[in-house]
Each structure stands twice: as C-alpha cells, then as structure tokens.
C-alpha cells in the first residue's frame, strides 16, 4: 500500500508540474486548462457527495449556475466585482451556492438512493427554468455577457494571470476537501455511505451530516460557477442545463469516485476530448463514448482504480505462483 504522504507528494508534484508547463503552451490550451480547472472544482464537489457520502446528485449545476449568474449579473448590471470587490463576489458566490443547497437540501435529503437522484434532478431543472424564463434578471435564452475580467493590481484579463488565479482556487479547493474528508466529520460521512443505519444506531445524526455535506458541496459549486463565468465571459441557461450536472457526475465516475483527484483527472480527460480533440477530428464523440463505456466495463473504480487493480493482479499472480511452488514441493 502506498503511504498517504507519498500520495500527497505525488499529487502536489503533478500540480506543480501542471502549473509550470501549461502557461508555456498556446493561449488556447491555457484557456482550456483554466476552464477545466474551474469545472473540476464542481466535479470534486460532486465527488464529495457521490464518493464520500454516497449521494448521487443530478442537480449540481444549480449551484454552479447561481454562482455564475451572480457574477454575471453583478458585473453587467451593477459593475460589482471588476476590481477588489472581486473577492466579495467570490465570497458571495460561495454563500449563495451554499444557501441554495441549504434550501434544496431540505427537499432532497428527505429521500435516499434513486429518489434523491430524481429530486435533485427536478430541483436542478427548476434552477434551469428560472434562468431560462426569468428574462428581466437573467436575459433568458440570450444569457448575459461579462465584458471584462476583474483587475485589481493583478489584471485577470491576462490569460496567464487568470490561469494562476484559477489554479490557486483549484488547488486550495482540493486541499480543503481533502482535509474535510479525512476529518472526523468526513469519516462519519464515509460511515454513512457504507451503512447509514449503523451510523444512526451509533448515535450519529446522519441527516444533519448529509445536510452539511450537501451545503459544503453547494458552496464549492458556487465558487466553481464564479470562476466559470469569468473564463468565457458568457453565462446562459446552457450553463445550468441538466447536461452540466450529468457531465460533472460522469467525470467523477470516469476518474474514480471517492478520490477527489479522480474528479480532476476525469474533468481533464473530458475537456481534452470534448474541447481539444474536437478541434482536430470530427469523430471525437465516438472516442468520448468509447472511453466512458470502457471505463464502466473494465474499471468500475474509475481511472484512479488502475493502480489498485494492477496491484491486485500482481498479487494474485504472485499468490498463484506461490501456491504452484507449494504444490510442487509437496509432491
């Protein structure tokens, strides 16, 4: 078993390598990487629910959406968030995501399993409906444009500066979520995932645990939305649409649920295929579909399950060889 310190060191090295290589690539790659990191925060928030709490949320785009719309509306209507008050928008984005999750959680957490999935789906569609129909606030189908990125000493209009800022948020989110899932609170979430009834018998208020996890995930979703809105400067109902939630869920499954890093890896792969490969070949959708199918067939633990699967294989090989040797010596 690889020790936890070594794993952390590996992830940190990968992050540093990522942050030092990408800014030297083409500006389109920088933009893509920035977008992927913003989205990865959303995917990790899904993982918090799916991988650690055992809740498959199909409505995570709602919190992402309110964060994005908040940023766009404040900037376009009230010119808030274009200077130092950008940090205020970040805080507000996290709060509004968490607040919406607090509201939706009251409904969604009454049920578990498939019913939870259906309710979050429905609530996510409510958020989409608001974005689509509340024309005076959201601009309806046309969406809202942000004409510039914030500038406060740091000019975020510069693609590389903005990349580093999003990278910082991404790394910090990953670190925070990692601390969270390894805290006693996170351990009890895992306990709920494994066997909720037993946790209840042990005296844990499992509903409250799930509720808090749901709000935290919503907060991270809101943060991801704020950053996402700034990457392309355009927010429309497409941001909140069901496929955004499904994408995030698929990315987590692809990378490996319950690993956090897996969510980021899954996001990177989907963005790489969907946004980059699509500029090279027209049949990129088959590749993406193929990757999904193969992962589900052969890697139910996702891509992050590869090492343990390899270990298992070697271990079983070793064992069978050992037993063979034993058999020969016996005979």
């Amino acid at each position, binding site marked *: 078993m690889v020790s936890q310190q070594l794993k952390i060191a590996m992830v940190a090295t990968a992050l540093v390598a990522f942050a030092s290589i990408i800014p030297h690539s*083409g*500006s*389109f790659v920088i*933009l*893509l990487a920035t*977008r992927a990191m913003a989205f990865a925060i959303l995917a990790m928030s899904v993982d918090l629910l799916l991988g650690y709490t055992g809740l498959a949320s199909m409505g995570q785009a709602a919190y992402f959406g309110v964060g994005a719309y908040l940023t766009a509306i404040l900037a376009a209507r009230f010119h808030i968030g274009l200077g130092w008050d950008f940090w205020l928008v970040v805080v507000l984005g996290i709060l509004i995501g968490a607040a919406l999750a607090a509201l939706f959680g009251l409904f969604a957490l009454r049920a578990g399993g498939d019913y939870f999935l259906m309710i979050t789906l429905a609530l996510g569609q409510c958020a989409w409906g608001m974005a*689509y*129909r509340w*024309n005076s606030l959201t601009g*309806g*189908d*046309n*969406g809202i*444009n942000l*004409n*510039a990125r914030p500038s406060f000493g740091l000019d975020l209009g510069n693609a590389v500066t903005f990349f580093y800022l999003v990278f910082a948020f991404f790394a910090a989110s990953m670190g925070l979520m990692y601390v969270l899932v390894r805290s006693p609170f996170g351990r009890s979430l895992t306990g709920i995932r494994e066997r909720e009834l037993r946790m209840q018998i042990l005296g844990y208020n499992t509903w409250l645990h799930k509720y808090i996890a749901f709000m935290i995930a919503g907060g991270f979703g809101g943060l991801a939305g704020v950053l996402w809105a700034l990457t*392309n*400067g*355009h*927010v*429309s109902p*497409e*941001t909140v649409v069901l496929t955004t939630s499904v994408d995030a869920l698929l990315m987590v499954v692809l990378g490996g649920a319950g690993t956090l890093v897996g969510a980021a890896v899954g996001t990177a792969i989907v963005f790489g295929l969907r*946004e980059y490969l*699509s*500029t090279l070949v*027209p049949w990129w*959708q088959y590749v993406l579909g193929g990757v999904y199918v193969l992962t589900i067939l052969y890697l139910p633990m996702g891509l992050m399950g590869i090492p343990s699967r390899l270990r298992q294989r070697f271990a079983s090989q070793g064992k069978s060889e050992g037993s063979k040797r034993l058999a020969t010596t016996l005979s």
Partner: protein
Amino acid sequence: MTNNLRKILLGSCLALGLAAAAPAGAEELRIGYIASTTGISAQVGADMVNGFQMYLDEHNGKLGGADVKLIVEDDQAKPDASVTKAKKLILQDKVDMLIGGFLASTGYALAPVSTAEKTLYMSTVSSADDLTQRQLSKYPYFLRTSYTSSQPAQPLGQWACEQGYKKIVTIGADYAFGYESVGGFQKAFEDCGGKIIQKIWPPLGTKDFGPYIPTIKADTDAVFSLMVGPMSLQFPKQLRESGYNKPIIGGGTSYDEFALPFMGDEVIGDVSALHYSAALDTPANEAFVKAYRAKYGKVPSYYSENNYTAAMWLDAAMTKAGGKFPGPEQFIKIMQGIKLNAPRGPVELDDMRNPIQNIYIKKVEKKKMFGYDKDELWNVVIKTYPHVSQFWTYGKEKFLEQPVYDRDFPPCKFCE
C-alpha cells in the same frame, strides 16, 4: 554512391515541395467558421457550411484572389462552447475573421469576443435584433449578412392587415427569437388597425400542442405561428386535426425549406414571410437551387442561401480590397459599400450593418418547379416587399426609441 543519390533525390523533392507550398503572390485569407455540426442543430449546421463551401468550390477556393483557408469548428449549439471555439480560432489558428453562428444566443455570445479580440465577426444566420440595433455601438467589429428576427415579421403584419384580418392569435416559441418575431408582427399588424387578441408561448421544442390548441380563441380570423425546427412539423398538422379551418400564417422558420419537404398536404395555402424562398422565380435563384440540389441532394434552405451569399459578399469585398484582408475596420467599410445580386435578390448593408433586402410573402403550394419532374411543396412568392430595412417603415430613430421586442412588448392591449 546510392546514399548520395538518395540525398540528391530527397533534396530536390524537398525543394519541389517547398515551392509548391508557397505559391508566389497569392495572399491567404483565414476564415474561422462556427457551426453546430453535432447536437440537435447538426442539420442546420450542415446546411450552413454547405452553402459557404459551395461558393468556395465554385470559385476554386478563392475569394477576391486570396486563397481561403476555411477552418470549421463545432460549437454543439451551445453559446458557451462557441466562445471557446472562437477563441481557439483567433488565438491558435490566427484567423482574419469569424463567421457563422446559428442561435441568436450564439450571436450574443460571439459579438463581445469580436470586440475583445479585435477580430471581425460576421453573423451569417444568427438574427438577434439588438446586435444591429441598440447594442451595436458595443460591437464595432460585428456585421450581419442574414436578417433581424423582426425584419420579415413586420411586413407580414402589414400584409395580414391588408388581407382584411381583424383579429389574430399568435402562438410562438418561448424564447428571444420567438419574442422578436411575434413582437414585430404584432407591432405592424396593430399599427395598421388589426388586433392581437391572444398570445400563446409554448416552450421551445414543444411537440405536443394538445394543451395549447384548445385555448385558441374561436373568434380569431387567423393564427400566426412562430415555430422552430421539429415544432414546425407538428404544429400545423395538429392544429388542422383539431378542426381549425381558418388561415394559418407564420414566421419564416415555421415553413422554411428545412421543414417543408417533411410536411404533409395540410400546409398547402399557409403563408409565411422571409428574406429568401427556394421557389423564388429568378434565373439567379434557379441556378443556385439546381446547383445546390445536384451537389447535396436537397433544396437549399435559407441557412444555405445566407452562407452562400456571405461568401459572395466576402468575394466582392476582397476583390475591392485588392485580394488582401485590410483589417476589420476597413473591411467593414468596404462591405458597407457593396451592392450584391444574391440568389435572394438585391441586398446591401444599412448603416447599422444589417442587410436591406426584399422580404417575400410566400404561400405553400404543391407544384413542379425549375423542371423537376415531381410535385413538391414550394414556398411560392405571392408578394415582394422590396428594399426592406430592419426598421421597416418606422425610421431608424423612432424605431430605436422603443425597447427591443420582448415577451411583453408590444403589450397585448386587446388580450382579455
């Protein structure tokens, strides 16, 4: 010995290759094209690209003497993805201009990119009104060769009024394109003395109109429909099946050549308005329809014609510019000075960079056209409003004083 020979051969091959790669004198025009080639709008995307490509093929891949490098990117009909792809085209492929874009929302998303990156964006389909109206000043590198959503609807309102219709119920897809089309129709119709007595807004993509059709008021003289895509196929059929037997008129997309071949005889006699009809009986259009149909096996839609004409427009402008792209500001000036004879008829840009063009009132008829041997449904032109601008007869200043057409503008004064 053999080694030396190989080197010499290799060297001369390389030299030849280099010579072939750099033809002397010819400039390159790099065009980034945003189309939805996957997703729900993939068919429209194909029509758009085909129209543009056909003009290029007819002219040996050259526009105004410059070799065209056309790079098509798929935006999956998502405005957000179109921005990513536009940035890829500008930053990585270093294109001289962006064209294409299907949805109105795509236009709204791409126009700011053109401003931020100081790159020309020419919308060849996206028809969001305000891009060339109240918001134009924000987008100095934007121009449009298609139309505004309300541009054909306003003359249709006038026409409906002249037919003696007094009361009309509108039913339109519940999004910006629907609001702008219905709004334009209502404004012109009511200014002429008609009354819109009810406005119904089914969501975009509705296929079952069961909940909406029974609510249509019985004392209406006609129904104005604004349908898009698959909605267009379902609505007239379901409305007729319900026993409704008064006239149906519609926005251009309710009966465009995209939907028409898949419609039944129940739509014969329905009237719509647009700046193009494949049944337009002019030699230029006949040649275009025949060439397009021979090449792609279907009658061109307005999406195809708009992009064919866009390429024609670029050709004329590049010729005027001497075969070299002069930068966006200069290029827009040249584009504004061109009068074109397109398949759709004479067309030129107004000072807000939207085309002034004929608007055709079209009636669906089943007949043989252009020598094809089968009876087919065609949008036969029954009246032409020549030289129509996006401001209709209101004048630019007066038009721009009112807000953009919306769900509640003009207000429904005669709805109870």
